[in-house]
């Protein structure tokens, strides 16, 4: 993170005079404490002072030794630093969210300097900057908008299409041949009309010409089939490659990227955008060339046949072009966008209501829901009518303008025939070619819009393909057979690096130990286990497994040796046994049954009509919470993990099921290093040690008995739960009395 920006010369001079020491850190502010935007606005730290600059002038200077308790306070859309200056609480700087991460580090530095401690900046990496222009890149992307040219994106995508381009070339050549054939056909129409219908021609000649015309037509027909097959080959193969590339990329990206993006967005990029790109490549490589070729050939032929008439029919073309584009930009774009939005709204409302139908029924809000949906549906209809009306107006209008040329042909053609400067056959031929002139014209009119749409998809796919995963194996990363000794050394971590969820965590866990993590929601328990799995990298400190930094262990090697059972476990739709052996795809049926037996799942599975072949519905909706839990445990057992993470694995279950699952878990835990998170403290009774967490720190550590004796947080938690259990007991008795 860049914390020492170069100040402009003028400002630098004033700052140096004020500090009377070197500038150690200088970070842009952009506004004053009252939120007013300022030019030349900086926060600067020297050896013993900090100061602020506004509009190029020194605003405030303070000795760091006179200050304490620097604190970063995120607001909404901005943040500030609060500190005690000369014994008085003050807001000393305000800034936009753009620089909030930077100020997170500045606050750490100030606190360390105020406490006379050595300054430790763990994150000494530079901002991600564009290697070409040096501009700071947007978080979560590796693309510099200034230097990444659209051409580059197109080039990369086209390169991916290269192996299949041969299919494209084949169909293009065929299309060109058929175009020539269809134009050739025209000359025979002329001959048929002039020589045969106009008299003078023989029957043989007529049949000969007809034979040639039909032959040319059939030839074009079959060639077109070959071209279409070739075209299809290109489309399918290229789409497959592109989709696979996007999908592979998504799989390789870190949890933080994927959880920040919406599933819908990722699905769109994998399917809709790749489709759009396919259309784009076909449009540019075949349709455009074909249309331009046909357009040029038809134009040349018309000019050769009768240049005056050719010019007459070409005149309305630019007007039609202009009306089409103008109508789109002025009216249609907005209406069709409105239609899309209206459709989206109606669809997502429908999706919401159908998913939450139980809530609708429970509160009896069917009428209200229906009324709202009716309103949304009406909006879709209104927008659609508007759109269609515009299409109905402008479509025919353009056609009429183009057909003005057609009328001109008849008019001037007839005049020419009467004046004997043209034959009837020539008119027929000219007219046929004129038709061919209009077809590509229509296509060319629509093409800019198509290409513009496709470019958005090209950019979106290019962006995802060029993402670099945040969590990566290093060159030095190796496979490691995990024993199970885990050590946290000074680990601090935040999903936003300015807002730490874990602070200076230190502990050592021996192989086979079971650790219970206790603490209220948001205290950092699940985050701690996420770091063990290396879903995220620590901001400060290190995590070691068997003395080896987890960043030096290959990710696949690490995760394959960690088993996780969560409160809500995801089952994929498919056969039940496939779900169990998800963690070990080559497991034998016997192994699957053994795992299920250990997980106390075998009994219920064997009683299902389809046993282990039972089809799991989407999201596992045909299984109860307890059943899903046991399937997940069986899955974890099968992978034989060295480290096990149980995150509220039994909290959602009834007492009897919980007992069964506890028993299963106990078998699973045996001999494995285990982190178990539980709110119900009774479930942690077998833990070797308990870590009590609060506000991102481990505040108590010890066995159940030790912690009870200490009478600290753990003690009060146990007491609170006991009181609750007693109250619950009383309630039960009351309800029993009522029931009787």
């Amino acid at each position, binding site marked *: 993170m860049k914390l020492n920006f170069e100040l402009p010369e003028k400002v630098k001079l004033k700052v140096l005079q004020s500090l009377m020491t070197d500038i150690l850190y200088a970070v842009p502010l952009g506004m004053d404490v009252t939120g007013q935007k300022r030019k030349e606005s900086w926060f600067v730290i020297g050896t013993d002072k900090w100061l602020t600059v506004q509009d190029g002038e020194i605003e405030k200077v303070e000795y760091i030794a006179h200050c304490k308790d620097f604190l970063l306070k995120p607001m909404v859309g901005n943040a500030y630093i609060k500190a005690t200056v000369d014994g008085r609480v*003050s807001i000393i700087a305000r800034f936009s969210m753009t620089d909030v991460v930077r100020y997170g580090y500045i606050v750490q530095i100030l606190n360390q300097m105020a406490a006379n401690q050595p300054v430790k900046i763990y994150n000494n990496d530079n901002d991600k900057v564009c290697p070409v222009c040096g501009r700071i890149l*947007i*978080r979560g*992307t590796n*693309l510099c908008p200034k230097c990444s040219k659209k051409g580059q994106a197109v080039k990369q995508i086209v390169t991916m299409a290269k192996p299949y381009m041969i299919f494209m070339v084949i169909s293009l050549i065929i299309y060109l041949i058929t175009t020539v054939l269809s134009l050739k056909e025209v000359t025979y129409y002329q001959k048929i009309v002039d020589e045969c219908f106009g008299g003078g021609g023989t029957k043989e000649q007529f049949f000969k010409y007809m034979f040639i015309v039909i032959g040319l037509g059939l030839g074009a027909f079959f060639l077109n089939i070959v071209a279409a097959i070739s075209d299809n080959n290109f489309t399918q193969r290229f789409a497959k490659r592109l989709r696979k590339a996007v999908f592979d990329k998504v799989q390789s990206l870190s949890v933080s990227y994927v959880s920040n993006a919406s599933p819908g967005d990722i699905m769109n990029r994998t399917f809709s955008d790749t489709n759009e790109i396919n259309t784009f490549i076909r449009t540019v490589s075949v349709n455009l060339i074909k249309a331009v070729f046909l357009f040029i050939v038809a134009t040349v032929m018309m000019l050769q046949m009768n240049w005056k008439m050719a010019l007459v029919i070409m005149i309305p073309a630019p007007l039609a072009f202009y009306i089409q584009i103008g109508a789109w930009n002025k009216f249609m774009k907005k209406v069709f966008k409105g239609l899309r939005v209206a459709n989206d709204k109606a669809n997502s409302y429908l999706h919401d209501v159908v998913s939450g139908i139980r809530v609708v029924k429970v509160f009896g809000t069917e009428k209200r829901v229906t009324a709202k949906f009716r309103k949304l549906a009406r909006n879709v209809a209104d927008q659609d009518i508007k759109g269609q009306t515009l299409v109905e107006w402008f479509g025919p209008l353009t056609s009429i303008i183009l057909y003005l040329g057609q009328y001109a042909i008849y008019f001037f053609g007839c005049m020419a025939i009467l004046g004997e400067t043209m034959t009837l056959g020539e008119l027929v031929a000219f007219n046929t070619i004129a038709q061919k002139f209009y077809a590509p014209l229509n296509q060319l009119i629509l093409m800019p819009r198509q290409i513009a749409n496709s470019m958005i998809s090209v950019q979106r796919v290019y*962006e995802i393909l060029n993402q670099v995963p945040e969590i990566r194996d290093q060159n030095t990363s190796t496979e490691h057979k995990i024993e199970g000794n885990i050590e946290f050394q000074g680990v601090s971590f935040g999903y936003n690096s300015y807002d730490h969820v874990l602070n200076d965590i230190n502990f050592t866990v021996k192989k086979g130990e079971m650790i219970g993590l206790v*603490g209220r929601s948001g205290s950092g328990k699940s985050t701690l286990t996420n770091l063990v799995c290396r879903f995220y990298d620590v901001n400060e400190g290190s995590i070691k497994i068997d003395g080896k930094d987890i960043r030096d262990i290959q990710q696949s090697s690490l995760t394959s040796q960690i088993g996780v059972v969560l409160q809500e476990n995801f089952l994929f739709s498919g056969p039940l046994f496939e779900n169990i052996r998800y963690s070990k795809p080559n497991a034998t049926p016997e192994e699957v049954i053994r795992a299920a037996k250990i997980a106390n799942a075998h009994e219920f599975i064997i009683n299902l009509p389809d046993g282990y072949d039972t089809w799991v519905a989407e999201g596992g909706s045909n299984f109860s919470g307890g059943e899903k839990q046991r399937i997940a445990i069986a899955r974890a057992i099968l992978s034989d993990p060295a480290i096990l993470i149980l995150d509220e694995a039994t909290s959602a279950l009834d007492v009897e099921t919980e007992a069964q699952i506890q028993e299963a878990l106990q078998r699973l835990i045996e001999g494995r290093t285990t982190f178990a998170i539980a709110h119900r403290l009774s479930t942690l009774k077998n833990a070797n040690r308990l870590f009590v967490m*609060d506000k991102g720190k481990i505040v108590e550590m010890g066995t159940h008995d030790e912690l009870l004796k200490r009478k600290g*947080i753990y003690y*009060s938690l146990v007491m609170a739960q006991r009181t609750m259990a007693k109250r619950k007991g009383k309630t039960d008795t009351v309800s029993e009395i009522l029931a009787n």
Partner: protein
Amino acid sequence: MSESIIDSVDIDYIDPKEAKFNITENHILTLDLNGVHYPCVQLHRSFPFTNPDQYISVRDDDDSDKDEVREIGNDKKKEIGIIRDLNEFDAVTRKILDKYLELRYFAPAIIRIISIREEFGYRYWTVETDKGVCKFTTRLGRGTVVTVGSGDKVMIYDVDGNRFQIPSFSQIESKTRKQIEMFM
């Protein structure tokens, strides 16, 4: 018939006559209420879009004990009370509260768009706001330019978590309105 469950919890409304808000020269909002001095308080709107002037939670923001380990469940930084309506306060106090809220919910108001460029899944804006010219970046796609509240206010969220607003969309210059309509 017993009282409704809704009535079983009281809201501690702050009595405008008893409350004395002040902004110190060090820009900290303080409160004196019923003889108690709160050296640092924060205001959180309950309904920032639909009802920005009512139901404002006044919260103790004294960080002086930040390193002490608290007993679980006993959060010191609690709600002091709720302001039912800003209009209940006298003009001077109202001004102080408005000023504080404007800073907490920092969103420069867009006056007009200077330029917009779309590239590689992002939209790059240069706009003139009441706080000066701002440049920011938003993601393409839904949820970055949205109408809120009664529907005439538009919020724009950038990639860093900054917010920009158009307080009255129907009143804004028509060229800017047309441009923004396309992103909503």
